[in-house]
């Protein structure tokens, strides 16, 4: 369902990823570990196609970087939920509208939007700040808004870039249980993380990146 074939990617002749091949099947839960600057966020960016590989092919669902048309990219992204490392919230609207945005994009009815957003906000413990300005939230609260937005649209895979980095251990456990739950419902999860204790507590397949190379386990 997600396949990398000998993917190489660089910026300005600096290689960032070298000859990466990997496969994530439907409904799998996979960690992406590696030191700071190893290329984890870059791997994720190739999946939601913010970046395209210099060499090799990335295949996501029925889309291949070899032949995807530019106007198909939004359709791909609606099926992939992303928790960005720097959150990338829409700072010009409320928490509610941030979470609702992926539903607005596909033209969901207002009533359904309201119902779904309320449910997801409750799951991440943010019901009380739904009308707040995201800029004023604490780091962990922003992170949870990003998570809510990533899962609202029932994607087939959620890419989570360090989704517990700004969370205390209790909140991190809660968030992990949310990811476990959506994973049990059939959604694949690819989580870039440094949190070794989480990896040990919730064991799943682990991809390890080192300076742009995928290390065989």
């Amino acid at each position: 369902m997600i396949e990398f074939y000998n993917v190489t990617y660089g910026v300005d002749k600096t290689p960032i990823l070298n000859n990466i091949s990997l496969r994530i099947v439907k409904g799998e839960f996979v960690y992406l570990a590696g030191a700071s600057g190893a290329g984890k966020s870059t791997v994720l960016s190739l999946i939601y196609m913010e970046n395209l590989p210099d060499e090799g092919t990335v295949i996501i669902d029925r889309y291949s970087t070899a032949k995807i048309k530019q106007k198909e990219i939004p359709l791909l992204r609606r099926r992939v939920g992303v928790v960005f490392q720097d959150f990338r919230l829409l700072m010009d609207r409320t928490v509610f509208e941030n979470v609702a945005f992926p539903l607005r994009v596909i033209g969901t009815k207002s009533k359904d939007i309201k119902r779904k957003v309320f449910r997801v906000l409750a799951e991440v413990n943010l019901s009380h700040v739904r009308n707040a300005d995201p800029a004023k939230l604490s780091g962990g609260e922003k992170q949870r808004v990003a998570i809510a937005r990533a899962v609202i649209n029932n994607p087939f895979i959620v890419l989570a870039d360090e989704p517990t980095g700004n969370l205390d251990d209790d909140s991190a456990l809660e968030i992990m249980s949310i990811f476990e739950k959506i994973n049990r419902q059939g959604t694949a999860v690819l989580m870039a993380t440094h949190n070794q204790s989480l990896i040990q507590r919730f064991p799943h397949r682990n991809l390890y990146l080192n300076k742009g190379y995928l290390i065989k386990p």
Partner: protein
Amino acid sequence: MTFWFTLKEGLKGFKRARLATSISIVSVAFALLLLGLFMVFTANVDRLIGDLRSRIELEVFLEPVIEQSVGMKIASEIALMEGVSDTRFISKADAANRFEKQFGRNIYEVLDTNPLPPSVIIHINEGYRKAASVREIAGRIAAIDGVDEVAYQEDLLQVIDKYIHIVYLISGAFGGILLVIAFILLHNTIRLTILARKDIIQIMKLVGAKEAFIRRPFIVEGLLQGLIGGIIANALLWMAVALSRHYFFEAVVFPYIFFAVLVIVGVLIGIISSKMSVSKYLKAVL
């Protein structure tokens, strides 16, 4: 559904970027006001030139010995000719009065008889106030029995004919420059308001919004900026016209179509600029 969502989003864009949008509206209003002032100015210059042309008169000198009644018959004959709007008969006595005005002496002081010829002063219809047509009319009048000579300020007419082009050219060039300036100013302002939101545009794209979906509310916002700016410009322009009617000329010309022109120009620039700017940032990220 999508239409209303788009409109609502466009309106919300105002609140979301309140400062940028209000700065932009003020700029739009003032650039349009400028354009409006120039249009009013041009309309008034045009009216003035029309006035000048309407003052053109031909003086037809009749044979000095002609009977007054015959002279008046000739005058009414001329009045019926194509291109002539009205005629006024100047008798020998009227001519003597004019002589005194011009030379400061009563003609009867110097002479026993009045040697001045009677004449007919004629005005020309609007469509015929050009050097060529007037010359043609003068020719036809000169051919009438009893007419001695036709005099008119041909050189003035030629000057008007010649300079009118220049006046219109200058007005046109200035108006064109102004339109370009207003366009550039509005365009730049709207670009800057969207530049301030380029992150938002890029995030929307990364979250799966199609380009048209992202673009539409911004276009609506640009349209509304142009619309509101246009309305404010109209209000200011109307105030300026009312003030100048009160203090300077009551006769300031102001065609109401200008109101529509300003709003339309504002809205078009708003739409085009928003669309161009948003597209730029949509292209900046895959």
